[in-house]
């Protein structure tokens, strides 16, 4: 039923739309600024006259990124961790979630308690670090994949999802002689692709965004993902830190400030590109997570 808006409502609607536009600007402006800076003429960038759009288009910074072994390798490392790490994550999550979703599984309670317990207690930073230094994976690529091989919370979310698939499907497969591995791979997995998409997105984003584990467990800089490169730039102001990291920052200084901006663009780019298409999955993931596991 159409109702005429009162004056107050009209004012409110207008203010609301203006406010929302303001929200959009605040959210997007930092990204716009970084893009503009990275593509501007170095002189304009240093003078600080770039506000909204690139002045004097110049893509040298991007060329430098591709040529600089450090940054280029870091980027490839990031891609490696995001793909391999996510694959490991999904396999582990499914392997845990499926047995836990089976009501007749004898050790279901035991394993559930074992996992839940770790959500509330942990050894903490130092004991984990000491352990890691003793393991053969320390200072290898696996050092930042295996310690986060599976997320307890996502195991339970996935288990809840598996529970929604009718049990009769599994039972009839069993009667036909399929073992649990076949049931998992040929029935459960294809039927839970939306859940797998959610898992892949959450895990991939967390790998792409992580920097701290690398600083802890990888002393060899050639293994570091691109996020660590950003950390070095930011922490070099803290001389003490830079010295401790043993970082050669001469390269970055010579490249000028724009390479930094271009690195940010390169780091954010994959997320911004896939984001609009996958956004609904992220939201779905939150909603699944909100239902008690």
């Amino acid at each position: 039923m159409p109702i005429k808006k009162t004056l107050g409502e009209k004012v409110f609607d207008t203010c609301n739309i203006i406010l929302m536009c303001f929200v959009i600007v605040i959210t997007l402006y930092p990204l716009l600024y970084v893009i503009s800076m990275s593509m501007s003429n170095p002189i304009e960038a240093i003078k600080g006259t770039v506000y909204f759009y690139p002045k004097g288009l110049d893509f040298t910074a991007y060329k430098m990124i591709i040529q600089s072994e450090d940054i280029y390798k870091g980027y490839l490392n990031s891609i490696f961790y995001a793909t391999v790490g996510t694959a490991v994550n999904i396999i582990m999550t499914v392997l845990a979630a499926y047995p836990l979703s089976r009501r007749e599984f004898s050790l279901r309670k035991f394993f559930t308690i074992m996992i839940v317990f770790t959500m509330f207690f942990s050894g903490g930073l130092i004991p984990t670090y000491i352990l890691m230094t003793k393991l053969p994976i320390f200072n290898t690529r696996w050092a930042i994949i295996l310690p986060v091989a599976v997320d307890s919370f996502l195991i339970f979310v996935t288990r809840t999802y598996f529970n929604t698939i009718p049990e009769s499907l599994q039972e009839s497969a069993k009667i036909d002689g399929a073992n649990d591995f076949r049931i998992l791979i040929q029935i459960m997995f294809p039927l839970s692709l939306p859940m797998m998409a959610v898992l892949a997105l959450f895990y991939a984003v967390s790998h792409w965004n992580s920097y701290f584990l690398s600083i802890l467990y990888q002393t060899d800089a050639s293994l570091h993902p691109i996020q660590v490169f950003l950390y070095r730039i930011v922490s070099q102001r803290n001389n003490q830190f830079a010295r401790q990291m043993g970082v050669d920052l001469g390269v970055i200084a010579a490249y000028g400030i724009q390479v930094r901006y271009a690195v940010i663009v390169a780091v954010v780019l994959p997320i911004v590109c896939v984001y609009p298409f996958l956004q609904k999955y992220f939201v779905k993931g939150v909603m699944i997570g909100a239902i008690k596991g």
Partner: protein
Amino acid sequence: MESNAGLAINKNLNTGLRRKRTSILSIINRDKYLLIMMLPVVAFYVIFRYVPMYGVLMAFKEYNPVKGIWGSPWVDNYGMQNFIDFFKGPYFWRILRNTVYLNFLSLLWGFPVPIIFALLLNELRDGFFKRFVQTVSYLPHFLSTMVVVALMFFMLSPVNGVVNEIIKAFGHEPIYFLGEKAWFRTLYVMTDIWQGFGWGSIIYIAAIQSIDPGLYEAALIDGASRFRRAWHITLPGLLPTIQIMLIFQIGGLMGSNLEKVLAMYETNTYEVADVISTFVYRRGIQSADYSYATAVGLFNSLVGFILVLLANWASKRLNENSLW
């Protein structure tokens, strides 16, 4: 029809098994594939989660890498010396205050924002603009801590950051924001809100959508204005969600913000920025003072755990909704 037949057969199998007296061996045999599946996961939890818990013993010892955790000697005062040193040490109050205060400020300023945003969003007409605002607002959540800190660092740079360019344009001296004690908390909280408000609003938007539309229709017929409807229907409808979220966040007051603080702080700002987790990182890993740092970390997680327990108890009391 088919599934019914399957169930019947399964029932027969079950009773058959039960008659045979189920031994442990037959259970293992029945579950063998499930057990094999769990194997890598169990290995993960034992190695990366439970072995470090054993390592917590270090907190009560004078850890010596050569002697190992078990062989290292216990410290004085029944193994509590590391804790006593920490409580009496010069940094105890500073890092405890900073940990709680930073989280508290984030809660105080950051908590209402997603609620207000969800309410305002709800007043927009459905359509492209609404979806666009929503989509844009979630985006910062997916940027890494490192990217957010780097963005802040560049935009606030006293040399050519855009904020200082504006300050200079008005004829003031540029400010080195990240090196100023007075600015650290503000920047920390502001970026927290920037990164989290959109994502945080999802749960409230969902709660609004689950409110019975009949209530709005009834109010409309009674002549309630839009403001009245928001105030008397939407907001009360959100209240349970607000309560739960608030309780959980209070439970997280001792939580770690290690990655962000570590990237943001510098020696000048330690006074207001150093939190327990960054202190543990510096003392434990950079200065290799393992036992002491483990003790500090253990103190942090114990207090944090008590807070979580209290939060869960409170939410149980409020509306029989608990974490577990």
